[in-house]
C-alpha cells in the first residue's frame, strides 16, 4: 500500500513539517494496514539507517519527504520509496548519478526536469529498498523508461512503480520480490 501526500508549495515547506507529516503517515499506515501502534513498536535501523520494526520483521516500510510532499510504502516485501517535486536540477548531480545513456535521455528530452526526477526517484527507491541508501553507487542501476512509463531495469528481483500527479510530484516505489506484477494500491491523502 502506498500513501502519498502532496501539497502546494506553501505547505510542508520546512524540514520539520515534512518530518512531522512523514511520521503521521507512518503511524496511520501501520495502524490501518497491520493494526500496529507505532508508539508501542520499537523502530530499529540497520547500519545504513534504514528503519525496521523490531518485532514485526514481516512488515516492511519506507518513508520519504520533500518540499511539499511525503510518501509511505508498506509491503510484505522489502520496499523503498522516494518522492520529489519536479524542479530544476543540478547538472553536476545528474552527471554523478545517471549513466551516459540516461543522461542523454534527460538532456535530449523536452521534459528534462521531469525525466531527471523519474530516474532519480527510481534509483533512490532501489537504494532504499536494498537498505544502503546513498552508499550504493546510483550509476550501478540502469533504467530505460518510455513515454508511457514502461520501464526496464538492469537489476533482477525487483519491481517498480511510478506515480505522477498534476501538482508536479513524482513518486517511485521499489519492491524486492520475484513477482512479475503487483497490484499496487495508492491513496492520495489530504493534509490534516
Amino acid at each position, binding site marked *: 500500500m502506498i500513501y502519498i501526500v502532496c501539497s502546494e508549495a506553501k505547505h510542508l*515547506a*520546512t*524540514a*520539520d513539517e*515534512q*518530518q512531522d507529516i512523514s511520521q503521521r503517515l507512518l503511524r496511520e499506515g501501520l495502524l490501518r494496514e497491520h493494526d500496529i501502534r507505532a508508539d508501542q513498536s520499537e523502530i530499529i535501523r540497520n547500519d*545504513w*539507517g534504514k528503519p525496521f520494526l523490531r518485532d514485526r520483521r514481516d512488515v516492511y516500510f519506507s518513508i*520519504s*519527504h*520533500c518540499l511539499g510532499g511525503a510518501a509511505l510504502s508498506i509491503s510484505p516485501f522489502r520496499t523503498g520509496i*522516494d518522492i*520529489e517535486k519536479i524542479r530544476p536540477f*543540478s547538472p*553536476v*548531480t545528474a*552527471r*554523478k*548519478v545517471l549513466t551516459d545513456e540516461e543522461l542523454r535521455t534527460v538532456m535530449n528530452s523536452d521534459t528534462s526536469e521531469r525525466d531527471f526526477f523519474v530516474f*532519480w526517484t527510481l534509483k*533512490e527507491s532501489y*537504494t532504499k529498498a536494498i537498505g*544502503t*541508501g*546513498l*552508499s550504493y*553507487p*546510483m550509476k550501478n542501476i540502469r533504467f530505460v523508461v518510455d513515454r508511457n512509463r514502461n520501464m526496464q531495469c538492469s537489476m533482477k528481483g525487483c519491481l517498480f512503480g511510478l506515480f505522477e500527479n498534476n501538482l508536479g510530484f513524482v513518486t517511485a516505489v521499489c519492491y524486492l520480490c520475484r513477482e512479475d506484477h503487483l497490484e499496487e494500491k495508492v491513496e492520495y491523502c489530504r493534509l490534516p
Partner: protein
Amino acid sequence: MLKIIVKDLLDYVDIDESLITEDTRPSTDLHLNSYDYISLVGKLEDDIGIKIDENELRKFVTLGELDAYIQKKMLE
C-alpha cells in the same frame, strides 16, 4: 572549510546560518534528503576541486566529520 560547506548548504536548507555548527547533522538536524545531499556534495566538489566518494558519505554523521574528510582529501 566549514564556512564553504555552510555556504553551499544554505542553497538547500532554509535555516539561520548561525545555527549551523560542526556538530550539526545534515540528515537528522536539517532533514536534508538524498537529492539535496548528493547535490551538496557535487557543489562542494566543484567549489573545492576534489572528488568525494559516495561510498564514504554514510560515515559522516556531522558537518564536522565531512569537513575533516574534505581537509584530508585536499592534502592527498
